[in-house]
């Protein structure tokens, strides 16, 4: 390994490195704690490679600007935290409807409202799923350490292109601000998905919303050789508005199915000591670090504990969760909210009564002692 490839960085910087590795060339954002370092770093890095950075007047404008830039053929990203993520929701829905590849980073802090800007939370899991109005599907990914932040960020760009959809990176304040080692992959080490472009020649009718046989929609750079229309209204294969019930039904189905039918290929997760685990911890993001600590610690003392670390939160990997929890007597979801992933796990497993919550909602990182104490309470042993 080249020593130059070893970096000591914040999670936010690891995200930036990965975005650039994936080919990011346009970023629009608005300052907000705890995501600001992403914008700051990119304002310096992007123009060095001919990319563009713009600080917009708010998060709404940031989201809109990246959609415009993506349409012209760029790989794009914005970064924010809870309040800004709330503002982005309408435009995020536009990207869903118009099928525009883009990556939205939400470095979570405590909410609702201004909440707890400099402290950790994982309270936006459901907002990532249902923040924008109307039925839709969405991809949301997360990670618990900087090496994984890097690979999951590259994944996010790849999935955005593969499925022509916005992808949300749901990090948290601890991951964003903590510094640790990152080993930069060499160029080519992680495969990149480039934009699927139409083979339709100039002067030939191009249908921006006519799927190929495999369901994918090749794009033509907006402003390029084909003139077409893009709208947030329900639209036909030309991109023109339609309220024809068959078109409305077909498009809504397509938007959901293209993601929900690929739930298992979108699922990213890590497992530790699950083979014989009687108690399965399920966690993600920074709380998974504490959960892993508990698992390793108790394993050393002979307890049959395992950890399922989720990296894909949406679409929720229900099949995987069900399978991994099949033989568990007890499933404990470790998260920093009031049970947003807990509800999904309860729905996924065969016996919801064996699923418990170990959480903190006070802006403090849940630590191994917290988890251990909650486990003892669940087991009826007291702290």
């Amino acid at each position, binding site marked *: 390994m080249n020593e130059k490839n070893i970096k000591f960085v914040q999670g936010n910087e690891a995200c930036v490195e990965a975005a650039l590795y994936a080919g990011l060339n346009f970023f629009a954002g608005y300052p907000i704690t705890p995501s600001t370092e992403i914008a700051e770093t990119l304002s310096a890095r992007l123009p*060095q490679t001919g990319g563009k950075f713009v600080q917009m007047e708010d998060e709404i404008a940031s989201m809109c600007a990246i959609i415009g830039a993506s349409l012209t053929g760029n790989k794009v990203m914005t970064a924010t935290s809870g309040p800004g993520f709330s503002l982005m929701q309408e435009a995020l829905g536009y990207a869903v409807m118009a099928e525009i590849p883009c990556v939205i980073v939400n470095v979570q802090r405590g909410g609702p409202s201004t909440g707890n800007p400099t402290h950790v939370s994982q309270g936006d899991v459901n907002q990532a799923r249902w923040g924008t109005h109307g039925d839709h599907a969405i991809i949301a990914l997360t990670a618990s350490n900087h090496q994984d932040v890097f690979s999951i960020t590259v994944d996010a760009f790849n999935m955005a292109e593969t499925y022509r959809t916005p992808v949300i990176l749901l990090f948290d304040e601890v991951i964003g601000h903590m510094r640790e080692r990152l080993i930069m992959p060499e160029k080519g080490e992680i495969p990149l998905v480039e934009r699927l472009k139409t083979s339709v020649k100039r002067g030939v009718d191009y249908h921006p919303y006519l799927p190929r046989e495999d369901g994918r929609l090749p794009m033509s750079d907006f402003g390029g050789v084909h003139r*077409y229309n893009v709208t947030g209204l329900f639209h036909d294969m030309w991109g023109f508005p339609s309220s024809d019930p068959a078109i409305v039904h077909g498009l809504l189905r397509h938007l959901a199915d293209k993601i929900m039918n690929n739930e298992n290929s979108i699922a990213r997760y890590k497992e530790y000591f699950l083979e014989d685990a009687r108690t399965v911890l399920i966690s993600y993001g920074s709380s998974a670090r504490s959960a892993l600590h508990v698992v390793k610690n108790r394993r050393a003392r002979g307890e049959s504990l395992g950890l399922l670390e989720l990296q894909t939160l949406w679409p929720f990997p229900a099949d995987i969760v069900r399978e991994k929890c099949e033989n568990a007597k007890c499933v404990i979801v470790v998260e920093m909210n009031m049970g947003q992933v807990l509800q999904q796990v309860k729905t996924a497993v065969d016996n919801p009564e064996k699923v418990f919550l170990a959480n903190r909602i006070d802006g403090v990182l849940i630590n191994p002692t917290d988890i251990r104490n909650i486990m003892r309470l669940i087991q009826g042993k007291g702290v």
Partner: protein
Amino acid sequence: MAIKDYIRERFFPHMWCPGCGHGIVLNGLIRAVEELGINKNDIVMVSGIGCSSRISGYLDFHTLHTIHGRALAFATGIKMSRPDLNLIVPMGDGDALAIGGNHFIHAARRNIDMTAIVMNNRIYGMTGGQYSPLSGYGILATTAPYTNIDHSFDVVKLAAAAGATFVARSTAYHVQQLTDIIKQAITHKGFSVVEILSQCPTYFGRKNKEGSAVDMMERMKDVTTPIGSKAKKENPDLIERGVFVNEDKPEYCSEYNKIIERAMKRN
């Protein structure tokens, strides 16, 4: 090229009400583009939501029909990516200055090269006649049944104060001036604002007893005057038409290219 070569005929007849001024704006816009000889492939039209915003669907340019109030923000992403293209952003008065007011002043401040056309009919037409930030004190609207107590923006003053480097006003009645002004606005390098007074006989006219579309257009002739005219001195209430601001200032995308040069040198 013939006018009909610029439109998407399959979407006609358009959805605007009989007598609406927006069709005249469409006509003026096409004539401006035609006279400038700009290739259809070099024009991107970005619109928001409302009656005015439907204009993009009727034109055979690269067209992006976005969300309410945000057209300029989408357009900023496109223009920064493709500075070589001509960006035209038609908006309604509510679209541009209520929900989109923030984007309007900031796009002007950046002086990014695009043409914002505010089709001002002083009412929310699509939703059925509610008062807009340009309706003005004393008018009637479906949400101002006892008269409107909101004062209106002066688009020209607002745009100029925000930093737009080309600011002009005309009306649907003065269609030749309108065409000429749009031509200047498109040619201008920087953020251009063109306010076009347009009539909405269906809602504004009916609510405020301004008569037919023809009556409303005649009124545009009566209540406006060329900039600095003698009539304006005699009657300060007249609304001036013409080019108010036309100045050179560093344009955003050109400036960003300099940033790229600086960043590459330092790297």
